[in-house]
């Protein structure tokens, strides 16, 4: 962890009942860095992203983004649990793309993408639409602008979700297994879009994925999780080709056998 880190986890722990999900976890991510999180099911990867998105609170420890403490704020000289207003100010820089897309079924594709820019960022309808059209073009869905989300394939829905996330100009993009609900072919479409995003923007990316080729292409660093701890951290070439930890070796072997 260095001073320059945009995101820091410091001694973060989380239990669900008796189940220890994160165990005194500390790590940092630099601005613009692309980090891939891997690890067996239940090792706490989703929990980390959800915490950054302020959807799950840690039991102890601190999480900061650009120096701002996510879940605590100063009030009258003391640190108190953050209120909605503070949470909204830290959320401004971060957004998340979900495994199940979560497009709003009550809005057509274009409005899914313009709704937050208009009502959260305060853009004019025209500005928001112009930007949404650009983004939908980029994800290859310019012709689906007027479609209902329910009428799109999973891969198309996920690409809209990516456009929707980028429309609020995030500094940090969280991606939680965004292709694992998709057939391989559709997954490939989505990964291509994300490669584009990685290439053409400087957004910080935290990405949970088991698509190793993709992780190799885009990430600066891979973190291997096990039982709520990081057991190995290295650039993809190193971690994938010469894993040090026995658990990592076993996990990668099982991934390869599967594909």
């Amino acid at each position, binding site marked *: 962890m260095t001073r320059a880190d945009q995101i820091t986890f410091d001694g973060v722990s989380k239990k669900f009942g008796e189940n220890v999900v994160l165990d005194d976890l500390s790590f940092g991510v630099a601005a613009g860095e692309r980090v891939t999180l891997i690890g067996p099911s239940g090792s706490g990867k989703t929990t980390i992203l959800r915490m950054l*998105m302020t959807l799950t609170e840690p039991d102890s420890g601190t999480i900061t983004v650009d120096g701002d403490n996510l879940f605590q704020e100063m009030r009258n000289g003391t640190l108190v649990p953050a209120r909605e207003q503070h949470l909204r100010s830290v959320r401004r820089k971060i957004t998340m793309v979900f495994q*199940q897309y979560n497009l709003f079924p009550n809005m057509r594709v274009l409005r899914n993408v313009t709704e937050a820019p208009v009502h959260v960022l305060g853009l004019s309808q025209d500005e928001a639409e112009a930007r949404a059209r650009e983004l939908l073009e980029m994800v290859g869905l310019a012709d689906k602008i007027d479609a209902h989300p329910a009428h799109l394939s999973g891969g198309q829905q996920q690409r809209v979700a990516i456009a929707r996330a980028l429309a609020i100009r995030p500094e940090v993009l969280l991606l939680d297994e965004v292709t694992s609900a998709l057939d391989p072919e559709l997954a490939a479409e989505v990964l291509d879009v994300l490669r584009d995003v990685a290439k053409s923007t400087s957004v910080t990316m935290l990405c949970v994925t088991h698509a190793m080729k993709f992780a190799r292409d885009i990430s600066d660093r891979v973190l291997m999780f096990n039982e709520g701890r990081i057991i190995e951290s290295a650039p993809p070439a190193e971690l994938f080709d010469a894993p040090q930890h026995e658990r990592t070796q076993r996990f990668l072997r099982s991934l390869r056998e599967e594909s």
Partner: protein
Amino acid sequence: MSGGLWLRLLDGLLVTLQLTGYGAVLGLLFAFAAGLARLSRHRVVRGIAFAYTEGFRGLPALVVLFWLVFALPGLGFQLNPLFAGVLALSLNIGAYGAEVVRGAVLSVPAGQIEAATALNFTRWQRMRRVVLPQAVVAMVPPFGNLLIELLKATALVSLVYLQDLTFQGQIVRAATGNTAMTFFGLLVGYGVIALILTILMRLVERRAAASLGRAVRPGLLSGRTS
């Protein structure tokens, strides 16, 4: 049966439709106010809404109506009879509607709210732009059933001398002496209104489903559920 009696029935029909219409609007208001209040973060607000829904689901509509018409004057308030009727009916139906609103809001998947949070919507925007538009679609079919319940309940006002369809039916019965035919005719009349309301609600249901890009149920009458 003389033309005058037919005119009476027509007058009664209008009063019944008025009661149903106003009752539905006011009942919808109570339903949303109480249903959303039950989900409030504030205990007091939740408590008041809970007392309202539990209370009016335990109080007979007819007793509420009698109270508004015959007891309230004892406290120095005299309500317009039509208003008293609408109020009693809508307080009752609103308590059931509140449960519909609450259930529908809770049925919106958590992922929708999380996605709205990830886009940094405010709490109110999440409700107004994401949750409610989806919840309303789920409310339409049960609201359709409640509308029929409301229509049926309007007949109670005839017991406090409001001249609705049932009241005028009693007059016709007295005038013609044909008891069986009159009451059967009344039942058919209510049945026809209910049928029309059901068809209208089915059309609303179709539009609502289409707003989420969902396929619509075929048939305007088949498979009504309770």
